[in-house]
């Protein structure tokens, strides 16, 4: 097993080292690092903006670049949290707690150094996990029939919507809305145009670009405008030589790095629990087992090392269900799957064998990208710190232009720009009403495949809906449905507990965010 993995990995490196792939990977992590640093721009909005640009590219290059933006933004987001105390990227919100006090004590450089090393350890473990786990998952998933695929998707959708931020009920409603938006357009089997309201332009369905840029572009701008986040750059002058941590700091951070990495890689495997939850859980764990918990919040280096390692390990692990099963765990993964589907590649367990260049090239590019990021972050830290000061009032008008031209360029069609604007305004109304619109994209991407498999499963079972819980013939499907039921029951129990007066169930604090993470 190790031998084949190494051969495949070797092949992956030969793909990733092709000059133009290498260039796109570098560009991706560079842009990612940049938007991670910029307060007010998130990886989701950036990937959506870049998505139309990838239509003309080869699939491998497109996916390498978009993935690079995602993990690159994690490195940048940490800088933002530690130096400015701005939790603009949800996974790094918890890093503020100890990172900013360290900055105030003049140890911001050390905190960043510890972060970079921890990130690299976390990411390396996450990638290794992917190398061995993804093919193993595939060999199981290859045996899945339509019923199993369907109930697995059900579980993924439920987990993605109930475990994310905000009210679980509203999350499920957003998923269903996403499924409905995914239906728009000609029916796969009969060609009947559905939910098009007589608009010819909608016959091909809603473009993923229009949906993503409406919800994560225009709606986010409407939310953030004139909010004037106040921040203070007076502590944020860090030089390269400040970044080398002392031996004592490394000794203190060593076990937190390892613990964070393990927690992150576990969180990556549970659908719906991405890097944000991983970082919160690992911070809480670290504080609990510490012999000096009172230091946490006042600049404990462990409070930076553990969540950062865990975020990065989880970010890389997130790719496992996405690439091996075709079930995205969060918004970014849904976007990446969308990018692949636009290129005509069907996601699912057959992806690794049919397109080994994409899968192994992506993994190899993770290593290259992470090394590039370490190189980018250490000597260029001065530049990143300067970028922190770019105000939002210059950022959003430029981004708005990129949204318009990007959507137009996807099909050379002005109708799509109008549709994006409509979705954006609607998305903002949803935000005001307390909906977190991230699950819309999950539902949208999975919707058509869900319907197709559901129809097929019904056809095979001759309309017997109980086929999904037929423990004799479909034990795997039964397990998935059972897990979904458990999720719902858990939510109901939590809700009942919250209703009881005087007792509030512990909830993960919603991270104040500029952009979905």
């Amino acid at each position, binding site marked *: 097993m190790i031998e084949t993995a190494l051969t495949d990995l070797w092949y992956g490196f030969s793909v990733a080292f092709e000059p133009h792939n290498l260039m796109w990977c570098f560009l991706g992590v560079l842009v990612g690092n940049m938007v991670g640093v910029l307060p007010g721009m998130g990886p989701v909005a950036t990937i959506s903006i870049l998505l139309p*640009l990838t239509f003309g590219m080869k699939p491998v290059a497109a996916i390498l670049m978009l993935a690079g933006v995602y993990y690159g933004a994690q490195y940048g987001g940490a800088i933002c949290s530690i130096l400015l105390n701005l939790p603009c990227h949800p996974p790094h919100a918890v890093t503020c707690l100890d990172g900013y006090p360290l900055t105030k004590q003049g140890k911001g450089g050390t905190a960043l150094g510890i972060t970079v090393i921890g990130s690299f350890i976390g990411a390396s473990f996450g990638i290794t996990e992917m190398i061995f786990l993804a093919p193993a998952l595939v060999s199981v998933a290859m045996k899945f029939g339509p019923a199993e695929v369907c109930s697995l998707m059900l579980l993924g959708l439920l987990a993605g919507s109930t475990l994310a931020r905000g*009210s679980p*009920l*509203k999350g*499920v*409603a957003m998923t*269903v*809305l996403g*499924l*409905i938006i995914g*239906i728009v357009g000609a*029916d796969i*089997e*009969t060609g*009947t145009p*559905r*939910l098009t309201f007589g608009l010819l332009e909608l016959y091909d369905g809603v473009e993923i670009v229009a949906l993503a840029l409406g919800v994560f572009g*225009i709606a986010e*701008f*409407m*939310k953030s*405008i*004139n*909010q004037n986040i106040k921040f203070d750059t007076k502590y944020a002058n860090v030089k390269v030589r400040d970044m080398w941590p002392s031996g004592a700091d490394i000794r203190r951070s060593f076990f937190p790095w390892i613990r964070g990495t393990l927690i992150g890689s576990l969180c990556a495997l549970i659908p719906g629990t991405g890097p944000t939850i991983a970082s919160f859980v690992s911070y809480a764990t670290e504080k609990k087992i510490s012999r000096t918990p009172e230091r946490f919040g006042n600049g404990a280096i462990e409070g930076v090392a553990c969540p950062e390692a865990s975020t990065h390990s989880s970010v890389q692990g997130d790719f496992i269900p996405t690439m091996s099963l075709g079930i995205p765990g969060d918004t970014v993964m849904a976007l990446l799957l969308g990018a692949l589907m636009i290129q005509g590649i069907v996601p699912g367990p057959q992806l690794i064998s049919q397109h080994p260049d994409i899968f192994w090239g992506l993994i190899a590019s993770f290593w290259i990208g992470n090394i590039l990021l370490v190189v980018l972050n250490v000597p260029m830290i001065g530049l990143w710190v300067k970028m922190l000061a770019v105000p*939002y*009032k*210059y950022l*959003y*008008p*430029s981004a*708005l*232009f990129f*949204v*318009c*031209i990007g959507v*137009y*360029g996807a099909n*050379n069609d*002005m109708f799509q*720009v*109008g549709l*994006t*604007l409509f979705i954006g*305004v609607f998305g*903002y*109304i*949803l935000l*005001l*009403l*307390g*909906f977190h619109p991230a699950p819309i994209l999950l539902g949208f991407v999975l919707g058509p495949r869900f319907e197709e498999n*559901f129809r097929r499963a*019904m*056809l095979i079972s*001759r*309309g*017997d*809906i109980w086929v999904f819980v037929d423990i004799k013939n479909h034990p795997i499907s039964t397990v998935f449905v059972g897990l979904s039921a458990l999720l719902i029951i858990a939510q109901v129990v939590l*809700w009942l507990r919250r209703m009881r007066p005087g007792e509030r169930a512990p909830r993960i604090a*919603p991270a104040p965010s500029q952009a979905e993470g």
Partner: protein
Amino acid sequence: MHKLFPWWKRDYYAGALMILLGLITAHEGSNYPLGSLNQMGPGYFPVALGILLMILGGLIAATATAGADAEEAALPHAEWRGWACIIGGPVLFILLGRSTGMLPATFACVFVAALGDRETTLKSALVLATCVTVFGVILFHYLLKLPMPVLTWGGT
């Protein structure tokens, strides 16, 4: 109660919106053949999802938390100028892009959008719009060869 939601609790509006969307979906879906579970027609899924969304909307409204929750208290004040400018930018981009080409469309879009921020002055908006226009035309017209004329009259 927050002034953005004057009469009701916020979750009542949220639930009502979901019920409305579900109703529209189910109604539209019922125009197509439903089929049976065995042979599902094109209308089956939309109707099922529409009904599910209506149920969820009802549950959201029914479980509306008493009083304003923390998230609701943190809602922004009505930001009409900002909203209008952010909507105005793309609208101008569509109109001018159809009739006069990429250059005026880009300039107008960025300029109007920039005015949405209260700290932006006329001068800084002009400078920003000029910079983005130059950069945008070079990138999208000359480098990426987007088939949209830079300057034209009467549309494409």
